[in-house]
C-alpha cells in the first residue's frame, strides 16, 4: 500500500498548530492592548534621564 501523504494524524497536528498560532497572535494583541491602556490611563509619560520632571516641581516653581 502506498504511503498516503495525508493521514488523519496530520489533520490533528494541523488543528493543534493552527489553534496555537491563533492563541499566540491573540495573546500578542491582548498584551499590546493592555500596554496601550496602562500607558494612556496613567497620563503623560515622562522621560526621566537628565530632564526636569514637571510632576516633582512645587507649585509656582
Amino acid at each position: 500500500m502506498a504511503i498516503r501523504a495525508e493521514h488523519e494524524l496530520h489533520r490533528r497536528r494541523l488543528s493543534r498548530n493552527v489553534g496555537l498560532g491563533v492563541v499566540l497572535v491573540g495573546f500578542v494583541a491582548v498584551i499590546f492592548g493592555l500596554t496601550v491602556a496602562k500607558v494612556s490611563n496613567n497620563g503623560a509619560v515622562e522621560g526621566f534621564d537628565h530632564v526636569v520632571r514637571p510632576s516633582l516641581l512645587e507649585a509656582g516653581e
Partner: protein
Amino acid sequence: MSDATHIPQARDGEAEFGDYIALLKPRVMSLVVFTAMVGLLVAPTPVHPMAGFAAILFIAVGAGGSGALNMWWDADIDAVMRRTKSRPVPAGRVTPDQALAFGLTLSGFAIVMLALATPVFAAGLLAFPLFFYAEIYTMWLKRWTPQNIVIGGAAGAFPPMIGWAAATGGVSLESVLMFALIFMWTPPHFWALALFMRSDYDDAGVPMLTVTHGRRITRTHILAYTLLLVPVALALAFTPVGGPVYAVVALAMNALFVKGAYDIWRRDEPMSETDNFRVEKAFFRFSLLYLFAHFGALLIDALLRLAGVM
C-alpha cells in the same frame, strides 16, 4: 501498509486543538466569565475596557486551568460516569501528564497575567480558588465527604469577587454577597443533578449525598439550602449594586425556585421514576436560569445607573 497507517487513533498524545479546549470545561467557563464580568462591571470604580477584558480573559484561563487539573486527577471517576467518559483524558485523546502540564501552566500563567493587568489583590484572590478547586475539592473533598458540593462550591463562587477586586482592588459587602449567592446556589443545583444521575455517582464511588445519606435526605437538603439561599439573594437588592430590576427578578426567581425545591421535597422515588425525574430535571435547568437571571439583573441595573435612568 505504510507506517503512518499503524499509528493508533489518538493514543499517542496527538490530540486535536479542540481536545485541549474541552479540558478547559468551556461550559463551566461560561458561568465564570459571565459572573466575573458582572462583578467587574457593577463595581463603583470604572475600569479601562481593555484592562477589564484582559481581567475576565485571565480569570477564565485560570478557571480553565483548574478544570484541566480536575480532569487529570478525576480521569478514573470520569471513565466510569456516563456523563463524563468521553472527556479527553478518559477517552485517551490526551494523556494524563499532558493534562497536568496544561492545567498547571495555565493556572500559573493566569495568576501572573492577572497580577500584571489588574491590582495584585485580584490575582491573589484568583490563586486561592484555583488552589482550592484543584487541591482541596478535587483531590480531597470530592472523594471523602458528602458535603463535597457545599464546600467545593466556594471555588465556583469566587469569580464575581475577583471581577470586583480587579476593578476596586478590594472586597466589600456587595462582592461578598455575590459570592454567597453562588455559594448557596451550588448545593441545590448539584443535588438535583445527583437525584437523576444517581447510578453514575454510585458506579464511580463518589460520596454524593444521594449515595451516603439517601435520596429522602437529599430532597430535604435541597429545600433547606434553597430556603437559606433566598435571604442572600434578596439582600443584594438592598446594597448599592441592587436596583428595581434586580429586586423584581430576585423576588420572582426565588419564589419559583422555592416552589421547585418544595415540589422535589414532596415527591418520593416511585413518583420521580414514574415521570423519569421530570420535576428534578426541570429544577436543575431552572437553577441555571436562576443564576444567570440574578447576575443579568445586576448588570441591567448597573447600565440603567450609567445611563442616568436611576
